[in-house]
């Protein structure tokens, strides 16, 4: 594996006082199924185990992230290693809410996932919502081997869309990064840097007047030639969305802009429906969180 580290992760001494939610897990293959071991964790991340929603060998794990949301200086760092041949799905209990940062410090959400040979990762977190005056730095880093398999989603909502008169694109700082490497080589880097007032104000226009941006990434070494056509068909026609799909080698990328949260969720689910048989060898199904 490219980055097999499973060493306990520690807070960065540069970070200001705040909550440091740390979770470090490792997925291993035992008795014909994947099991997830918590190597260490720190409140407000909580270890609550996992279950087998598909009634097969693949565990579903709910990340209970920062209770109530991120206040100024909060950091959450989820680190996971999927050993060769394992498969797991990680999701969250709710959206990551980033509150105002009046002191000018940053709230950080960091995810590092290393996927071994012939292992499958499905990473389907809820959206990130930077509230008015928030200062947010999000980093998602996924490392794959050439034989790994991946379906991952990333979604940013521009604020509390239906709060009062609407509160969108009112954050003060947003860096959002989703990085994928395969065999040590960077293959996709979706990085949004909006840290100046004019750039933030322009996002509404750049997102086609839609407050939600969602992206799906899928990788497998053996995707069929027509899989992106299937995805295109699946995501077309979801109300309120503007969406596109592309394929670069064995990587499929879907970009979705939507007026409402549910519309982006539906388009993402449709993409998963088209891709999951090829990625995981089974059908997509709504993820149960309760």
């Amino acid at each position, binding site marked *: 594996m490219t980055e097999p580290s499973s060493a306990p992760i520690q807070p960065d001494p540069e970070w200001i006082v705040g909550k440091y939610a740390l979770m470090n897990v490792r997925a291993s293959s035992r008795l014909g199924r994947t099991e997830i071991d918590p190597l260490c964790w720190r409140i407000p991340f909580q270890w609550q185990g996992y279950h087998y929603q598909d009634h097969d060998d693949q565990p579903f794990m709910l990340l209970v992230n920062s209770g109530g949301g991120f206040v100024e200086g909060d950091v959450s760092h989820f680190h996971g290693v999927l050993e060769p041949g394992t498969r797991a799905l990680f999701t969250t209990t709710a959206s990551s809410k980033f509150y105002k940062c009046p002191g000018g410090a940053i709230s950080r959400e960091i995810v590092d996932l290393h996927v071994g040979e012939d292992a499958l990762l499905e990473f389907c977190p809820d959206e990130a919502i930077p509230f008015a005056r928030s200062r947010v730095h999000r980093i998602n880093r996924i490392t794959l081997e050439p034989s790994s398999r991946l379906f991952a989603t990333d979604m940013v909502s521009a604020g509390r869309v239906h709060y009062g008169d609407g509160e969108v694109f009112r954050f003060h700082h947003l860096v959002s990064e989703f*990085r994928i490497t395969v065999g040590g080589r960077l293959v996709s880097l979706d990085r949004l840097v909006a840290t100046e007032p004019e750039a933030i104000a322009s996002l509404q226009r750049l997102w086609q007047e839609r407050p939600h941006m969602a992206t799906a990434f899928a990788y497998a070494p053996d995707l069929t030639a027509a899989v992106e056509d299937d995805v295109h068909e699946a995501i077309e026609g979801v109300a309120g969305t503007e969406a596109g799909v592309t394929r*670069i080698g064995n990587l499929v990328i879907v970009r979705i802009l939507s007026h409402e949260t549910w519309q982006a969720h539906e388009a993402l689910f449709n993409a998963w429906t088209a891709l999951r048989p090829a990625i995981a060898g089974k059908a997509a199904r709504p993820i149960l969180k309760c």
Partner: protein
Amino acid sequence: MPTAPIIITITTAITMSTNAPDRLLYLLQVANASFPTGAFNHSYGFETWIDSGALDDAASFESACRDWLRYAAVPTDGAAVAHAHRRAAAGDLDGLVDLDHIVGALKLSRESREASFKTGRALLGAYRDVFSADSLAPFAEATRDGRCEGHQAVIFGAAAEAQGIGADDAVLAFLHAALSNLVSVGARLIPLGQIESQRIVRDAWPLLTQGADQACTTEIDTLGSATAGLDVASMRHERLHTRLCMS
């Protein structure tokens, strides 16, 4: 011992003055649409918007061009030209290869990524043949053996450094060429008149100079694009029934 430093300063000044016209001529030639890279044939997804009627006049097109320049071209390729220039100056081939990976990875649609490395490889070949220059031979070899793809911004910056062009001038020329090519796409597809097309470029001069300054100071870990709508348009371009542009 004040004499030696004065002589060195004068010598440097004379050398720069002597070469200045050549440097300007180099930039004018390489950044020209007729230089055989094919860059004039890429719309970065704009053809999708024009096809849908979202961009149907000079005003809407100009507004979209300015957004693209400011929030896509400057913080990705523009900044990459500056970084390539620095890495080439340091003889850092591995750094150029790494930068090439970043530039490619930042382009989320297949066509935009292909446009970038196809024009890059064409630039690499034309640069070698037209200027009889082999300074980029190690990088060319890296593209041939698959270590990197050979993106246009990286090669433009590295070649400019080899020709003695400053990073700021190289970035400005690159951005100007990119905008001019995009405007020529709009002129053909919308269509726009020649004068109003040139006016769009002229009116973008302040944005270009400001963008070049920004690109030259953009840190490598903040390269990124904010134009999600254009990402969608670029992806959808792959499925347009009638396409005049390659991206």
